[in-house]
């Protein structure tokens, strides 16, 4: 992932981009995250498959 793209993403999530952000190290870690997301995007989920709720039969 491009450094500028990471900066944009973090700026969107935070009001300011703090100096302590190690963007190069972050850029090295993000491809793994992208792989994980791709694995899930390839799942044959039913169109009506809802999101998860914790043990729904037991919700108070």
């Amino acid at each position, binding site marked *: *992932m491009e450094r500028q793209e*990471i900066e944009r*993403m*973090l700026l969107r*999530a*935070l*009001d*300011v981009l*703090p*100096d*302590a*952000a*190690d963007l190069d*190290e*972050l850029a090295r*870690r*993000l491809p793994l*995250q992208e*792989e*994980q*997301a791709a*694995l*899930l*995007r390839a*799942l044959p*989920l039913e169109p009506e*498959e*809802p*999101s*998860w709720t*914790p*043990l729904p039969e*037991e*919700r*108070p």
Partner: protein
Amino acid sequence: MSELTSLSLQALAAEIRARRVSPVEATEACLRRIEQLDPVLNSFLTVTADTARAEAARAEAEITAGRWRGPLHGVPVALKDLFLTAGVRTTAGSALLREWVPERDATVVRALRGAGAVLLGKLNMHEFAFGATSLNPHFGPVRHPLDPERMVGGSSSGSGAAVAAGLCFGALGSDTGGSIRCPAALCGIVGLKPTYGHISRAGVLPLAWSLDHVGPMTRTVGDAALMLEAIAGHDPADGTSSRRPVPAYVRKIEDGVRGLRLGVPREFFWDPIDPGVAAAARRAIGALEGAGARVREVSLPGIPIAAAAQSLLLHAEAAAYHRRNLGTRLGEYGRTVRLRLLQGLCVQTADYLDAQRARRLVRREVAGVLAQVDALLTPAVPIVAPRLDAEVVAAGSVVAPPQAFLVRNTFLFNLTGLPAVSVPCGSVEGLPVGLQIAGRPWEEATVLRVARAVEREGY
């Protein structure tokens, strides 16, 4: 370990009830042991010696007056430092909260106080529970009681070391991917992560809301059952808390495993793995078969999806909780946790929701297997306690950083919310190995019963 501090919680409780040991005596024994051993172990962040002495004296007076409250009355225990404690600092192992003193107790802390337990203090942990090594950049590493050059696992690192070393008779931990079971396995103690919703998380600093669990860490299965009975149950302050009644777990753990159907997953959990760990776990499984359990192989092919879902959910939820501080106090986080949290900010919303949908598929798959067997058996952690300075460790032919292995075998039961326990099942070159037993929702009694059968083998 001194004779008194080596007692199980249940044994101490019996001695206290019979007034052969006083709570003051037990508390002083623990405080002495903390003073002797903790300068090396570094398991406590705060020792509340004065209030512990006062609580012990009060317990003693009540018991002497015939007002015994139950098996935790007068028993010294300790808390991972993310449980809110009124008037006692709660750091979550972080620099951000180094001096934070809450005004209220977590629900489980109130439950322990109500049961008459003596609180010895707050235990070291991985910063904000976001990691499974015992390396803490702000308070120093927790060291292994059997070899101070080794880590104890985490994130409930101090809880694992303190219980294993006899500094307390039981501790509370939290578990988001394996943070109770991992240190329990590496330290040779019992660690139980109950069903999601069974123990209140109100007043517990979160890591990831949909994955976080609270549970006991003890030296015996009976002790874990006893603590579970004391702290489980409905809490209106926790929106995910179940209304199910709490069974009498202690009474059920001696039922044995004869006739129980136990499943051993053929995928994932056994590769990569340290061959010595695999052998110890296989031996324990063989012993369960010898005790009358019907053991069979089962298949869980969806685990790679589960790993992806767990990782995205964990990072995103943790980042959501920390977002405000990331914007203003980023430099106060340790480097590892800081990077993990920034990664979390980069998880896209649609991917987060897909991870939640994938979670349902995984849960269905595991539920299908648990319809055929009563519990699942796996090695709890595929390696033994790594050295503190290890950048990489080997699990069979795979070499990777310790973090890659420490919660590899445990996270599935956070994602699915199922109860799971780690119980000692042997050792490799003197370092403990844990067997993980996981069961159906609300069937803690079954997993504890199997764990007790393993314990009975005397590993």
